[in-house]
């Protein structure tokens, strides 16, 4: 990696150094070093249990880690400092495998709530923004529906609009299509791809290899809690260097 030798205006948006995470005695992240630049799209691939999702969840403080430094936007992540976490999480959006929409609120309220609470956005403004964002993911007409009236693909698109409502600088996507019926995967990936084209910084844990190949600037292969191999998608998929990655790709 050459990033930190460059000029200061290319300070990585996310800078992870020496990150170690244990669940009890089980070490799941064994010293991760990873830098994500602005506007970069990075896909993380690997077997289940390789620590991909855990790494992603460390970046917005959903998981604690025991060693190492993680900075976003130059600010070190301090999990026990609620104010620092509130700042950080406004910059880091997350989309989950299971959508996690708020079932007691309408689609529109799902998108409006956090900006009104966290950013103190006036209700009308929040509503206007929510309408724009829902239109952007193709769901303008669902504003007053309940989440359970939507298909999985639609729910996930609402979740994307909800995350975007906070104007994050980076979006973490944790297997966002894994819970979807095959015919609904496309519409969600299309939205993610549009975001990538519009210059959103994205970090995706995914099992959709074709998608990873298509949208990524860089692919990270994780194996047994470490970044095992990393590079541009063509290089990584066409010329895997390590036997572990070769095996992983051939098993697909």
């Amino acid at each position: 990696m050459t990033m930190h030798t460059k000029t200061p205006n290319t300070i990585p948006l996310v800078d992870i150094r020496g990150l170690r995470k244990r669940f009890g005695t089980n070490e799941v992240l064994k010293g991760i070093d990873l830098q994500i630049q602005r506007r970069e799209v990075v896909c993380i691939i690997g077997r289940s249990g390789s620590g991909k999702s855990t790494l992603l969840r460390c970046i917005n403080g959903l998981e604690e880690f025991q060693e190492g430094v993680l900075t976003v936007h130059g600010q070190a992540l301090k999990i026990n400092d609620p104010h620092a976490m509130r700042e950080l999480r406004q910059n880091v959006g997350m989309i989950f495998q299971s959508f996690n929409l708020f079932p007691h609120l309408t689609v529109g309220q799902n998108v409006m709530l956090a900006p009104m609470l966290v950013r103190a956005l006036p209700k009308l403004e929040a509503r206007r923004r929510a309408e724009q964002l829902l239109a952007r993911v193709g769901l303008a007409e669902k504003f007053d529906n309940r989440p359970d009236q939507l298909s999985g693909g639609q729910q996930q698109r609402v979740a994307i609009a909800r995350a975007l409502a906070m104007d994050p600088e980076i979006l973490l996507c944790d297997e966002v299509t894994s819970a979807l019926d095959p015919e609904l995967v496309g519409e969600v990936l299309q939205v993610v791809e549009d975001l990538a084209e519009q210059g959103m910084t994205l970090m995706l844990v995914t099992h959709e290899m074709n998608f990873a190949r298509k949208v990524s600037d860089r692919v990270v292969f994780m194996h047994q809690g470490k970044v095992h191999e990393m590079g541009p998608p063509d290089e990584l998929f066409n010329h895997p260097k390590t036997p572990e990655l070769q095996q992983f790709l051939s098993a697909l």
Partner: protein
Amino acid sequence: MVDFSFWDIARNLLLALRWTVALSLIAFIGGGMVGLVLLIARLSKLPGVAHGVALYVQIFQGTPLLMQLFLTYFGLSMLGVDTSALFAASVCLTLYASAYLTEIWRGCVLSIPRGQWEAAASLAMNFREQLRYIVLPQATRIAIAPTVGFLIQIIKGTALASVIGFIEITKAGQMIANATYEPFLVYGCVGLLYFTLCFPLSVWSRHLERKLSVRH
């Protein structure tokens, strides 16, 4: 010896019924408020608090309400507090209800998927906002039926306040039975009055349970 008509018995029992209802409401509302504070304290993950609340719950669940009433009544007067039976019964039943309600509600909060907390957290909401806007509204729906169910337990529990001399309908029934020598009639009426209080609540609770569980 004075003769008591059935009307005299009924009138006195109905007058005493007001105190059963009042004590139940005090215990339910007071217990609800204390229980909510305990719930939030327990969820906030402040060091040591969760264990403290768990112990509190265990103490009230692990001892008979009758003992709790005795201990409160005599304990308060030992502390030099000039207690009426109503005051002691209110304090005791409030604490008793708070221990049960906080545990019932904790179960409801725990049944909200972790993803809801995580989604709220990753939208930069703080603990209070996560609880207030995301978790409690959902947990409340689940909690309504068991909470109404517990209200029935409280109403029946107030009968025990008779042992510290509080005149609610069980105590009133006892006094009237002693005066009239008609214990079966009197206690029959007392039982019927409890039933008319509790049965509608029980039906309502079951109705809520069915209605709210279908929606998911």
